[in-house]
């Protein structure tokens, strides 16, 4: 049937022919445009903002400043939507100009005069934690926050997650060898093709209509209600197709500005759209990290203890960074069994653009630290790094760092992933060879795992409506961000209703007034949660179809089966009624009718999740742990320090592959993102913490023609309560890439490489050039 087949994405034709429309494609006569005025300083007091010249400019309808606006933030409300008293990062919005055209708004924006008093800027988490470091938030103790956020007033610590499992002292006492590795990388960008944008208008009846390129349309609705006291029922958020998100569109930012802007112009429609430069620094960025990992192990490589400090660079505001720092802590050991674990994961304020999740939600970052340390341990013990990982691989029966007992269902098969990776990579044949005097080939590997640290009451709903020809419409709150989830939902519905997937139509866009809620399209949870809801909705529809058919066929519903466009007697399929004849109710020959349009409804809420204990971290953060083993083969030139990524491997436990080609696409896409991030992406900051490369000329992701050969395989260890056993796979391809690349290059260059991005200059510097100043 439909599940397990490579069904072409429902929106594929529209996308490849250019017909697909995204938020900023919907232009209207009379729509106003906003231009953001941003700060050229990373840390400065705002002395004054003069707007009169801008207000007098042609076409200008309003100029917004930050005075009197409520603070915002998902876990802790520390961010003014427009900076008011001081700016805390380069690129922060200080004013918004609304005008008839974008050009007029841009011209008027140049007439805004801002006087700043520069303050010393804090550049990295370690710098921010030094005694006497300038404080970003003097009023940290006064911010409204949720119950699971623990800021430390008087410091730059927005939140600390503690993981305490076993007895770390005992763990180290039982160890023969203890190694310590530190890693670091600066914040970077998501580089989605579609930059972030939002439009808003207020209708005469007071209803607020927002369109946004977002992963969280339902959260926009909730937050505008929370921040501004608007009635939730009057807020309608519309999200069409989204042109790439990768976590960058999970936070709510421009939507708030669009709402404030429309309010300032009497409800007229206003578009707020990021140009690339703004999208890179003004909107939230991929989080940076400084981490130290200490591993204690026996001489044959069995892990005894891990002590980990993650200092996440949350940037100027904590928004989603708190969650990311917590998610990394929850899975801090990587997919390995460690009896004694001590981890402090801090979300630290710095004067850098504020951070948000990046595909893998803290996990590719975390695994870069841990997996580099594992390779260093293997080197010290003179053991094969694959053997060390295999020996410690996590299995059912073990507990996670937050002390969740693993079962056959809630964790994938890590040993199987490692075994298959070893075969695919021909690991045993060679790990480093010198092709000639200058050319070295080397392989590196990494494990990866992830659970989704999401709200414990996250839910998802699906509605199925039938058409008069018996076909079905699927309405779900999952945003189509390019992952193909909506097509997979169609497959799930088609499978359950035993019908042709071509007859399952999918509503691609979201309208929070008519679409049932899906918490957020994040965390690889679309297929799981919405899939469960879709199954429930299909079962509900089947029940209704059987009820009507039972009446018509004069049998009990229990004797009936739905499939192949019919409701038929299980005992004798020749006795049936076509679904199309009852999808809108059944009309008897005498004109009497029963039933009505069949509308299936289903929902799913995550079960038995708990917040973490503030002192030990014990708790159940997510429903299951997907695992993977990954590898990279590089060809390194010892003369000029350049390298080519030859092959990239991933073996991922998918639970069950619902759509092979789509799964492959997800895995390869994630792998390329991971390699791009690890090999060449990262913001460069000057001493005043200004971003020096906020444009695609100087910030250069991987290009066409630079990709390695991708080799992807899936293991299938079903998650019992997931739709057809499928686990989340949207992120796993990325998890191990940074570490595997760093491990391969460290082996090739013969020097530990613990920073990203791994540009040739870094390798040269580590090998011999560290004493040279900046070039």
């Amino acid at each position: 049937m439909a599940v397990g087949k490579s069904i072409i994405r429902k929106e594929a034709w529209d996308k490849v022919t250019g017909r697909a429309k995204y938020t900023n494609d919907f232009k209207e006569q009379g729509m106003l445009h906003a231009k953001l005025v941003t700060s050229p300083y990373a840390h400065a007091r705002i002395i004054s903002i003069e707007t009169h010249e801008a207000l007098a400019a042609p076409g200008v309808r309003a100029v917004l400043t930050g005075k009197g606006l409520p603070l915002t933030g998902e876990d802790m409300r520390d961010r003014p939507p427009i900076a008011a008293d001081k700016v805390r990062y380069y690129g922060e919005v200080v004013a918004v100009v609304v005008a008839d055209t974008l050009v007029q708004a841009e011209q008027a924006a140049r007439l805004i005069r801002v006087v700043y008093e520069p303050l010393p800027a804090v550049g990295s988490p370690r710098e921010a934690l030094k005694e006497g470091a300038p404080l970003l938030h003097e009023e940290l103790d006064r911010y409204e926050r949720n119950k699971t956020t623990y800021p430390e007033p008087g410091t730059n610590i927005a939140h600390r997650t503690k993981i305490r499992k076993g007895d770390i002292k005992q763990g180290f006492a039982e160890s023969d060898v203890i190694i310590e590795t530190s890693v670091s990388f600066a914040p970077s960008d998501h580089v989605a093709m579609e930059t972030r944008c939002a439009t808003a208008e207020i209708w005469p009846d007071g209803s607020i209509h927002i369109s946004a390129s977002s992963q969280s349309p339902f959260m926009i609705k909730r937050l505008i209600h929370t921040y501004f006291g608007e009635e939730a029922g009057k807020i309608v958020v519309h999200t069409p197709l989204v042109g790439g998100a990768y976590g960058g569109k999970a936070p709510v930012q421009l939507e708030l500005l669009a709402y404030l802007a429309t309010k300032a112009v009497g409800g007229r429609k206003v578009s707020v759209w990021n140009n690339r430069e703004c999208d890179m620094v003004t909107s939230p960025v991929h989080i940076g990290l400084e981490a130290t990992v200490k591993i204690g192990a026996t001489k044959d490589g069995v892990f005894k203890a891990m002590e980990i400090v993650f200092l996440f660079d949350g940037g100027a505001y904590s928004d989603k960074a708190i969650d990311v720092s917590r998610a990394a802590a929850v899975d801090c050991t990587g997919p390995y069994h460690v009896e004694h674990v001590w981890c402090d994961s801090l979300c630290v304020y710095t004067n850098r653009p504020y951070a948000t999740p990046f595909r893998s939600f803290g996990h590719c970052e975390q695994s870069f630290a841990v997996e580099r340390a594992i390779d260093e341990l293997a080197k010290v013990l003179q053991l094969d790094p694959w053997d060390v990982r295999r020996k410690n691989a996590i299995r059912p029966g073990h507990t996670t760092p937050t002390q969740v007992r693993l079962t056959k269902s809630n964790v994938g098969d890590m040993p199987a992933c490692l075994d298959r990776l070893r075969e695919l990579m021909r690991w045993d044949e060679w790990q480093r060879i010198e092709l000639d005097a200058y050319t070295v080939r080397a392989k590196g590997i990494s494990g990866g795992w992830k659970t989704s640290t999401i709200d414990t009451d996250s839910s998802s709903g699906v509605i199925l409506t039938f058409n008069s020809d018996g076909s079905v419409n699927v309405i779900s709150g999952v945003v189509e961000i390019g992952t193909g989830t909506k097509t997979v939902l169609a497959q799930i519905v088609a499978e359950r209703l035993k019908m042709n997937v071509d007859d399952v139509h999918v509503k691609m866009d979201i309208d929070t007034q008519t679409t049932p809620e899906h918490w957020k399209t994040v965390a690889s949870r679309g297929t799981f949660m919405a899939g469960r809801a879709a199954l429930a909705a299909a079962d509900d529809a089947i029940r209704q179809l059987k009820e009507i058919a039972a009446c018509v066929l004069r049998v009990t519903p229990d004797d009936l089966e739905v499939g192949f466009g019919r409701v038929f007697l299980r005992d004798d399929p020749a006795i049936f009624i076509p679904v199309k004849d009852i999808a809108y109710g059944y009309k008897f020959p005498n004109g009497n009718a029963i039933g009505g349009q069949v509308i299936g409804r289903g929902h799913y809420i995550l079960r038995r999740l708990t917040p973490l204990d503030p002192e030990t971290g014990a708790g159940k953060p997510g429903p299951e742990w997907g695992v993977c083993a990954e590898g990279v083969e590089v060809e390194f030139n010892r003369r000029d320090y350049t390298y080519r990524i030859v092959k990239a491997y991933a073996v991922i436990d998918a639970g069950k592959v619902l759509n092979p080609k789509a799964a492959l696409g997800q895995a390869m896409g994630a792998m390329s993102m991971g390699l791009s991030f690890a090999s060449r992406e990262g913001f460069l900051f000057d001493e005043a913490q200004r971003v020096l490369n906020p444009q695609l000329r100087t910030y250069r992701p991987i290009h066409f023609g630079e990709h390695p050969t991708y080799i992807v395989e899936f293991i299938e260890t079903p998650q019992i309560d997931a739709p057809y056993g499928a686990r989340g796979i949207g992120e796993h391809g990325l998890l191990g890439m940074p570490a595997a690349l760093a491990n391969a290059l460290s082996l090739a260059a013969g020097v530990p490489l613990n920073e990203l991005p791994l540009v040739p200059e870094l390798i040269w510097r580590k090998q011999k050039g560290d004493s040279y100043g900046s070039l």
Partner: protein
Amino acid sequence: MSELTIAGIYLAAGQSRRMGTDKRALPWGDGTLGTAGLKAALHSCLSPIIVVVPPTDALVWLPDALLNHDKCRLVRCAACHRGQAHSLACGLQEAIVVGADAAAVLLADQPFVTTETLDALARFYRQHHPDYAAFSRFGTPMPPVIWGKQMFPALLALRGDAGGRRLFCEPHWRGLLYEGDESIGMDIDTKEDYERAVIYREVKEGHSRGRR
């Protein structure tokens, strides 16, 4: 308390090395390039305006009407060939003589500086009493800049071609930065700069005429 006296120091003692000809005398609208900024200064609240020129300057670029303006004081700086720091020192010494509480440093090759910008800078300086208040664009401070008299010794200690720029980086000075239109701070060092600026000025003026 009487209002603070803010003198203007108009530095016109450069050697126009990169231009190859005296840039102050280049045509600019109906006057010369060197007078554009001076006019703005004379119309502003700054007073007096100390114009620093080389010792032997024939002043062909400076019409008598401006030279004889009430607020204008000419200082011939013998050491100006040793670099901008020395011209600045000549101007500062004169500012000290006239008892100024602060001094605004202006460059003769910044023709787009407006009276409004200077008045705004002075207003912020008077209101907030920082150590300095500078014009800035894209986060980079530059002249015009008002230096408080507490900074005069540090400025007088500069040598060679060093301008006050290095003081912007010293964290113990409290500065205010007036982030403004990118054209205002545009300076003209080369022929290409000049040609670009002429076009820019024509577009700007043509545009404003069109609007009226």
